[in-house]
């Protein structure tokens, strides 16, 4: 009976993977067909030609674009090549069939490959944004996430640092993160992170960050030029496939695989330079002196001027004021970028392969910063038989990052550009050396090495079933080595540190797939998955003080008392079951359902399992006869979805344990581990555990429309969503007489809702030699806090505040309504007639016009008198990008513009610089602090002025210039011409020398990255602000990069 069924369904259409389509079946010999495939530039080698009804058969065009094939005379031939629109032509008895393929703007595959199931793009019912290699190739950046900026709707990438190899932010559909505690509040890490899935292996930010030694972006281990496509699962219906880690979206990354065809070798390189960036505006020399003296004379009364003018300023011979004392120049350099990629790919029916190697080397614009990566990516597929195939992929890379002074993302400068002193005159030679150039004497290596391998065995049986089993291993190490010689350290002792961590992850997946078409109308596709994931993080920390000789840059020769070391281990595991069903009726009415169950070792003992369902429906209206008649509608789909996904990033691997700390007897000034020489063990009083802790969950609704109109000349996609995230883990207080002050609980909630638009157009017809293809994506998002612990009590973290009904991370400080320009601006108590005061004295003309929020005629932040309140919203309301692609014959130009609107930022650079000199009201401080050219600001000088900034009075001694004030709030919108690509492709047809040299493709290109910034913000760069919208002048600049490149294929 099996044989019978086998024969009967032999011709049934299979909807499996591309690779499976390529597997071998014997053809029924009837006609020999030949032909030539071309595009606008000439012959196209490497095009796959297949018979539609026998997807197993096929051939590839040769170097001249020619193909030979045997087919039945009524077959339909299908021509496909990545980057071109698929073309289907009936033979109708012909034996010669020449074809011209047209480039497809999207270049997207019809199939979205997730780790578990393949989604037919046409029949997809959820919100997925995708791009292909074309959009991210050869751009000067170390990691992929940066390259996604402005290219996909619903994906907000903000680069708060230009430092090579560090992670910035990528947020899908709005931020949901509230730090679990005030101590965990970090301006550079205030975003929710999506789950990344690289070739089927899930990696989330929190599991990498937990044992981070180097601060290097884990995505930098992947060479962007090895990436074939990126699909972003935005709504819960799609993300539910990934269950308890998918609440903030999923980024699927697929690396390039070989295609059937003759071997191709490709060499690609680009070289670039990065000029020195703009500096924080600083007055120097005589100008600085005269400006400072001017302010002192302007504001000082007779006594103050007589008694209190700093000698530093009156001494006109002070070399500080006769020289160039803008030290910022010492820390910037001209950077450079070198990138090389070599790859070989090809394949036959039995084996396909692609092996790529790369070198990326970027020298940063701040001295002693940069990133260098060596990478290898090897993907091999083997078809043992028609029913059994093996897919393997191996990725290896090692990257070394230089981190400047060595702190976080910002702390790379030896002298902070915004707290720069006016003079280094009184510094000792030793100090000067350690300040200006410690790097020549120190060692600070940050090395990440990643190896990732996976193999998947697929077995097809009974026509409609496929069972596959996959094993993936991810091994990653991070090493930080630091050594500082005795001459640089205040205690005169050489210091060295060596920290190492490794991360091993195994993922085993068993997958059973059933695809069936019943009665030619009912298409069913069912996936059942069981998956087990296990991870192990280990770390070793070693440090020593008093290394015997400065030439030794490792931990060696240190006495026992000065040697410290420890090691660390944590494990994680997860068991999951997944069921996914797709059903459609006549390819028109689409229904998808996903149900996933996850058990995570992180969850508390009362909550081991989490369940994540989703349902989505779609109507492919363009399949209806009525709409088929409308010639200008090629595709029209309406879809809607609901789903639930989770996030476990706010729970640590070990949070469910009530751990005791062995070796804790510290007290202020001592990190003792013992008392009286014996090891002390105490409970971990940082927080007591809670047996009910669980994942954070998000429920998301999405409706969308996809359309292709005017024969593909206009495509658009519109989505509207609302996502409710609840149960974020937060610390809540418990009474301190238990010894503990906090526990954590699933308490907070955030809602994000928004609209997304994507439009792609072809302005001119296919026939035109000149092409202009614009595309634009705009995303609108609003977020607000919906729940907080302790009965929704407002939550204050550092400079951020969370209030139910308000957006995340609002600013927290005094509201300033301009300047007290006239007596009528003063706060007066109407009952007593007394002029209002501040904590630091009575209000006067020229002072900031602080708003008396609580109406007590007294400006203060004391309890009961508090006027500090929330204002401003750092979350962008609109983000997006606008791409224009022009081509004419071999020339192409692509311009990407990104934009962000509707957010506030704080000019903390200005605040900090002014407060450095003016905070204490002592002109001596003022004399020492470097100053910006204040003549460009309208500040209050004397009664009668109508100023917008308060008095720059060196004698005021009022906290007028503290940073937590609305006076420093500025519009945070920007439009950035992100990059311009120019390319020229040599046509092998017209260049005989290329043919002689067997060059099939030659392309020259050039890129300018970070071309121009349009902003109203008065600081340097409105994008370079931290997660809370604070601009820091000491941040790492986003420099302009110029590159020139060459790509050759043989």
């Amino acid at each position, binding site marked *: 009976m099996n044989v019978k069924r086998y024969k009967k369904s032999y011709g049934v259409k299979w909807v499996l993977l591309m690779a499976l389509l390529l597997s071998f079946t014997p053809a029924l010999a009837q006609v020999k067909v030949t032909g030539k495939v071309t595009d606008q530039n000439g012959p196209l080698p490497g095009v796959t030609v297949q018979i539609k009804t026998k997807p197993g058969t096929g051939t590839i065009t040769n170097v001249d674009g020619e193909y030979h094939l045997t087919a039945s005379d009524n077959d339909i031939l299908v021509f496909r090549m990545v980057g071109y629109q698929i073309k289907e032509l009936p033979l109708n008895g012909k034996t010669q069939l020449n074809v011209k393929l047209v480039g497809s703007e999207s270049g997207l595959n019809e199939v979205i490959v997730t780790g578990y199931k393949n989604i037919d793009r046409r029949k997809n019912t959820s919100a997925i944004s995708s791009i292909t290699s074309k959009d991210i190739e050869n751009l000067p950046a170390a990691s992929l996430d940066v390259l996604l900026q402005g290219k996909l709707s619903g994906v907000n990438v903000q680069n708060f640092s230009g430092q090579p190899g560090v992670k910035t932010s990528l947020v899908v559909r709005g931020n949901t993160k509230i730090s679990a505690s005030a101590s965990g509040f970090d301006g550079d890490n205030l975003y929710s992170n999506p789950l990344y899935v690289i070739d089927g292996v899930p990696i989330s930010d929190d599991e990498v960050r937990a044992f981070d030694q180097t601060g290097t972006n884990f995505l930098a281990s992947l060479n962007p030029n090895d990436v074939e496509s990126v699909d972003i699962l935005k709504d819960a219906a799609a993300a539910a496939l990934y269950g308890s880690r998918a609440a903030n979206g999923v980024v699927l990354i697929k690396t390039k695989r070989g295609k059937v065809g003759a071997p191709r070798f490709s060499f690609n390189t680009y070289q670039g330079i990065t000029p020195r960036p703009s500096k924080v505006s600083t007055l120097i020399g005589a100008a600085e002196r005269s400006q400072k003296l001017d302010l002192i004379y302007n504001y000082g009364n007779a006594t103050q001027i007589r008694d209190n003018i700093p000698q530093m300023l009156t001494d006109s011979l002070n070399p500080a004021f006769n020289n160039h004392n803008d030290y910022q120049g010492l820390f910037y350099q001209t950077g450079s970028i070198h990138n090389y990629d070599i790859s070989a790919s090809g394949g036959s029916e039995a084996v396909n392969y692609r092996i790529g190697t790369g070198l990326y080397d970027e020298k940063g614009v701040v001295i002693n910063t940069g990133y260098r990566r060596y990478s290898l990516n090897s993907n091999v597929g083997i078809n043992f038989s028609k029913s059994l195939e093996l897919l393997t992929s191996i990725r290896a890379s090692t990257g070394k990052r230089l981190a400047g002074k060595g702190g976080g993302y910002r702390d790379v400068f030896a002298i902070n550009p915004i707290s720069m002193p006016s003079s280094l005159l009184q510094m000792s030679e030793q100090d000067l050396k350690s300040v200006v150039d410690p790097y020549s004497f120190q060692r600070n290596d940050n090395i990440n090495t990643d190896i990732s391998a996976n193999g998947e065995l697929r077995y097809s049986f009974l026509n409609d079933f496929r069972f596959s089993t996959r094993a993936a291993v991810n091994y990653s190490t991070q090493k930080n080595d630091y050594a500082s010689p005795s001459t640089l350290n205040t205690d005169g002792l050489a210091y060295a540190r060596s920290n190492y961590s490794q991360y091993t992850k195994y993922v085993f997946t068993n997958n059973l797939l059933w695809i069936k078409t019943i009665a030619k109308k009912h298409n069913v596709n069912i996936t059942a998955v069981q998956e087990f994931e296990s991870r192990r993080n280990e770390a070793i920390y070693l440090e020593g003080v008093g290394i015997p000789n400065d030439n030794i840059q490792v931990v060696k020769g240190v006495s026992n008392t000065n040697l410290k070391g420890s090691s660390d281990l944590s494990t994680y595991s997860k068991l999951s079951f997944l069921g996914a069903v797709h059903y459609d009726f006549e390819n028109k009415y689409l229904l998808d359902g996903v149900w996933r169950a996850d058990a995570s070792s992180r969850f508390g003992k009362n909550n081991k399992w989490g369940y994540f369902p989703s349902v989505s429906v779609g109507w492919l209206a363009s399949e209806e006869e009525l709409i088929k008649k409308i010639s200008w509608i090629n595709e029209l789909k309406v879809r809607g979805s609901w789903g639930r996904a989770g996030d476990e990033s706010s729970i640590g691997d070990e949070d469910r344990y009530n*751990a005791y700390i062995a070796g804790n007897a510290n007290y202020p000034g001592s990190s003792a581990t013992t008392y009286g020489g014996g090891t002390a063990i105490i409970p971990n009083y940082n927080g007591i555990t809670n047996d009910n802790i669980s994942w954070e969950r998000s429920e998301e609704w999405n409706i969308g429309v996809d359309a292709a109109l005017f024969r593909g000349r206009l495509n658009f996609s519109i989505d509207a969503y609302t996502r409710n995230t609840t149960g974020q883990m937060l610390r809540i207080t418990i009474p301190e007489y238990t010894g503990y002050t906090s526990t954590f609980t699933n308490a907070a909630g955030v809602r994000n809702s928004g609209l997304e638009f994507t439009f792609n157009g072809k302005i001119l017809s296919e026939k035109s030699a000149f092409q202009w293809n614009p595309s634009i994506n705009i995303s609108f998002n609003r977020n607000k806090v919906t729940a907080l612990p302790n009965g929704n009590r407002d939550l204050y973290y550092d400079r951020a505040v969370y209030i139910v009904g308000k957006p995340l991370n609002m600013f927290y400080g005094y509201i300033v309504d301009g300047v007290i320009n006239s007596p009528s601006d003063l706060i007066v108590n109407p009952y007593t007639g007394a002029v209002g005061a501040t904590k630091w004295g009575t209000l006067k003309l020229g002072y900031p016009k602080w708003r008396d929020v609580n109406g007590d005629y007294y400006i203060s932040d004391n309890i009961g008198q508090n006027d500090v309140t929330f204002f401003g919203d750092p979350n962008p309301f609109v983000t997006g990008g606008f791409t224009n692609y022009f081509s004419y014959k071999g020339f192409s130009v692509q311009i990407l513009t990104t934009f962000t609107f509707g957010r506030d930022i704080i000019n903390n650079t200005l605040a900090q610089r002014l407060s450095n000199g003016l905070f204490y009201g002592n002109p001596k401080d003022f004399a020492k602090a470097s100053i910006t050219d204040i003549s460009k600001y309208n500040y209050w000088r004397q009664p009668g002025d109508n100023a917008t900034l308060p008095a720059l009075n060196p004698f005021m001694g009022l906290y007028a210039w503290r940073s937590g004030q609305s006076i420093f709030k500025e519009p945070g919108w920007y439009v950035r011409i992100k990059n311009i690509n120019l390319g020229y492709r040599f046509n092998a047809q017209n260049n005989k020398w290329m043919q002689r040299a067997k060059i099939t493709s030659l392309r020259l290109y050039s890129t300018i990255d970070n071309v121009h910034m349009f902003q109203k913000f008065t600081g340097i760069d409105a994008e370079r602000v931290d997660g809370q919208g604070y601009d820091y002048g000491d941040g790492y600049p986003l420099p302009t990069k110029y590159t020139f490149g060459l790509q050759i294929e043989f």
Partner: protein
Amino acid sequence: MKYYSIHKTIVFTLLLLVLTGSTFSCKKALENKLTNDTYADTFWKSAGDVNGALLGAYGLFRKSMNQNSCFFIWGDAPVGLFNSDEGSNLNRVYLEGFFGVPYREEGAHNWTNWYRVVDVSNLVIEHVTKMPDDKFTGDQKKLFLGEAYFLRALSYFYMTRVWGDLPLQLTATTTADQAKYIGRTDAATILKQIIADAQKASSLLSWESLTNYARRRASKGAALALLAHATAWQNDYANTVRYTDSLISRTDLLHLQPRGSIRQVFKNTDEPENIFVISSKNSENEASEWTEFSFSATIAFITVSNGYIANMPMSVPQYYPPKSKIDILYGADTTDTRKGEFFKASPFGDINKPSLVKYSDIAYQNPSTKSDPRSESNLIVFRLADMILLKAEALNALSRDGEALTSVNTVRARAGAAPLASSGLALKKNILEERQRELIGEGHNYFDIIRNSFQMDKGGPNYFTQLTPWAMSVERFKQKGYLWPIHNSILNANRLINQNPWWMGKY
């Protein structure tokens, strides 16, 4: 045909095996063990575990004492024997009796550290009681329990002297659900609990513990000293005499240092004058370093000048005893050797602003350059001189002035000072002054004044006027203005806890 069905069977069997096999192994992995740290369920198995937890409690006690040098800020700063040149953040405490102490609130106003000592003590008491006897050798079980009762009593004693009424927590907390909001129990009940615990400790502990642990862990002596202080705080002076006598009579274990080497009690833990000290030896990697901020630094760094000990952070100590005040206290020209033993003027600094050198035992991390100084002096909780003077105070209160004079003159004789001969309230004042001369900087003197102010018929808070630069009004004393304010974070977190009456709205 057959081929396919066999094939099918094999595939499904394999599938089933893989699914079930991996599911079982996975279930186990989901209950991964914590290997990084020990935790509640795996701890408390051996005597070593208990010992580690007790050392943890001593470590927490050391942290509580050193946090913002609170023992000194409470016990010495308000008395005004120390001055500061650094402005109102530091001098309002002795000029006005204002206990706001900016930047030092964490140590001086927040009791969280102390309750951690209580929590570990509770854990030890609960677990040791349940652990089988065969896990311990000899008296070990009794001794461990005794140490836990002692530490719990001692922590409550520090707290009740500073804040008065306290939440009484006598059980350990092991899950968030056990954390219940409770209010404050009145100070008298707390004190009864302290005495009950200390009596238990005294009966469980042995005299041998004193020397076995080089006087830096609890012993019967330490428990008796605590009882002496606690009963004195109750003004139950008859018992104070009883407890102090039981210590003073153990001359085999306890006797005063010889004249000229009193300072040895700070340098070495096992000096015969010490009853219970907190150690922080550099050789054991427990010494403290300069913390950049004087507010968080340990006592040595704020009292010892770099004119006396090289590379200390300050040339004029943040808190220094002015020469004029020392001269008044010890008499301008005197044979009292303590003046020379406890105070040193910097050879190049201001002679009027000397250093208190009780805490001047310093080790250098880099001995060749004398850089990175580490403070390793003991903090003395109880020593014999304190007991002798406490006994004198008690005898005077019991109108046994003759015996009181004998006692107080023992301490004076050791220092080479002339004997006292006063009586009645004058003697009481003299004894309090003697405690200042002997125990200055050891965290006692402010509490000495309070203890002697409880009885309104014997002068009440008059001693403040006589012994400090500020006056404590009867009004303030009645509103418990002698207590310290409670940290705002504690009041904010728990509605059942109110500020001490006199501090309401003032801080």
